[in-house]
């Protein structure tokens, strides 16, 4: 990857006993999640990227364009081609929804990237019926949708989202998530997404930066970090891998979708979908079991040849096994959680050929064709 398509950020600051020392780079494409517990410094990092906070020892560049450097270079917030979605929508109460949406819209079209169209945003976020209303009496979900639209219409090169769902209740959250998925797939704007919620990461992220106590613990693609047995994601109770598969065929008799992923084909019950449509799949470590021989008749539809990559004991009783799909083991990685007894009885070892049985494949929303 060339420098021109990368976002690079490094901030160092010491404040009242809290040391922030983060440096990472991420491809300027898709969704990069900054993930960590509350108080880990992730909001400080995103505010630094936006220029809302200025730390002396900081560096930030996108597409080779330097926003901040240690030599004193500092582009003020309003000159950075970014969009920012706050935790609370922070709409302007004195302006109608339409005027809020158009507040930061430039008069001239951007030259170096496709324009984000007003009508397209309004329809995608389903806010057309609200356009002439003042934002005062809108619901939390409606406000946040307008906050997102307003940020998109500034024609940003980078969209920063600071826990956009955390101020919303569960139900509203699940209403907004599909909109964020849609805009990720629809507009070619790279997104930095801050969250402390793993389910949001799994649904949205392509890359991940793990933060803890002001430091970057790990950074990389979501698939990489999820299947890295040393990452806190893989060892958690809800450990899972997120894969992207493309629809290879649909079985109308049983309503089953076949999706090919590197190293194999997975089957999941689903309404019909377009051939070649990209879908996100999620497989929990607790839904994957391993067998040495091809199992006989079984209720499990997904049985795929794979090879053991690593074994990691989680505690005295349970282990985490990372397998790679495909007979030669060069496909996508899955996690399998099992008892020490099973590990010993199967005589599992690195490089061993096994069959991975996947009990449940969770399907995400469509990602369009790529």
């Amino acid at each position: 990857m060339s420098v021109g398509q990368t976002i690079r950020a490094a901030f160092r600051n010491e404040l009242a006993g809290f040391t922030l020392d983060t440096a990472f780079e991420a491809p300027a494409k898709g969704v990069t999640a900054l993930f960590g517990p509350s108080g880990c410094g992730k909001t400080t990092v995103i505010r630094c990227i936006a220029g809302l906070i200025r730390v002396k020892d900081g560096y930030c560049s996108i597409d080779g364009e330097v926003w901040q450097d240690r030599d004193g270079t500092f582009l003020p917030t309003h000159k950075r081609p970014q969009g920012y979605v706050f935790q609370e929508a922070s709409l302007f109460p004195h302006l109608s929804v339409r005027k809020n949406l158009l507040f930061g819209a430039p008069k001239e079209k951007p030259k170096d990237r496709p324009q984000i169209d007003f009508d397209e945003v309004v329809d995608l976020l389903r806010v057309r019926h609200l356009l002439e209303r003042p934002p005062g009496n809108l619901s939390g979900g409606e406000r946040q949708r307008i906050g997102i639209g307003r940020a998109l219409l500034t024609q940003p090169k980078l969209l920063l989202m600071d826990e956009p769902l955390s101020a919303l209740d569960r139900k509203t959250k699940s209403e907004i998530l599909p909109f964020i998925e849609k805009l990720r797939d629809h507009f070619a704007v790279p997104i930095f997404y801050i969250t402390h919620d793993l389910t949001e990461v799994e649904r949205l992220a392509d890359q991940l930066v793990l933060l803890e106590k002001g430091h970057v613990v790990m950074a990389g693609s979501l698939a990489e970090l999820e299947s890295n047995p040393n990452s806190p994601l893989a060892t958690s109770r809800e450990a899972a891998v997120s894969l992207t598969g493309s629809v290879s065929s649909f079985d109308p008799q049983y309503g089953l979708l076949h999706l090919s992923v590197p190293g194999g084909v997975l089957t999941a019950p689903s309404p019909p979908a377009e051939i070649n449509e990209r879908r996100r799949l999620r497989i929990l470590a607790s839904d994957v079991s391993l067998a040495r021989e091809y199992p006989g008749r079984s209720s499990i539809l997904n049985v795929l040849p794979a090879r053991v990559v690593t074994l990691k004991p989680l505690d005295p009783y349970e282990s985490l096994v990372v397998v790679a799909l495909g007979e030669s083991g060069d496909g996508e990685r899955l996690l399998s959680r099992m008892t020490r007894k099973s590990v010993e009885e199967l005589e599992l070892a690195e490089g061993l050929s096994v069959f991975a049985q996947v009990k449940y494949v969770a399907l995400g929303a469509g990602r369009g064709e790529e």
Partner: protein
Amino acid sequence: METLQHLWPPVKLTLQLASVTTLTVLLVATPLAWWLARSKARGKEVVATIVSLPMVLPATVLGFYVLIALGPSGPGGRIANLWGARTLAFTFTGLVIGCIVSSLPTVVQPIRNAFEAIGDRPLEAAATLRASPWQAFWRVALPLASPGILSGAVLGFSHTVGNFGVVLMIGGNIPGRTRVMSTAIYDYVEAMKWDEANILAGGMVAFAFVVILSMILIEKRFARMRA
């Protein structure tokens, strides 16, 4: 009715003085209030204190200093020299300046409160939406603070209408030139013209009533709009 004709000049002058003073004081008070609300400068509360002084000083003290400043040996005299006059004291311009100084704290306070109530977030949001600090002030801060600015304007206007001490000290109560309602009432009482005094005083009571009532209604309306 003919006997009441001579009541009109002080009323007219009062309204002129209050209008000019209000417009001018807003131009001074709004940026000042913005600075007091937003600045992180250490000395800003000292400035705020100086601005508030006219609120507690007797009108005679304030009037005395303004009189000296406007007089032939003060800066006001030098400015008056530009058009060949000796002094700004005992002129309409002098009255306006005196009224600005004495109403400034009344006007600055509600505007400063309104700016402070906005908080950082709307301005941050404006900055992320490409608004320069100047644009953020005009497009976000000013409209959001408009109820406070309106309150400041109404308070400044009524404060000037009701100003007696400073106006007397620097205006000298010259009929037709610096004689406003409050000083006219004083004259009528001195001259035992109770009828005239009664009409002007009653008029001012009615005016004050209307001002305070409309302030309350304006505030209620804005509160409803923002809810």
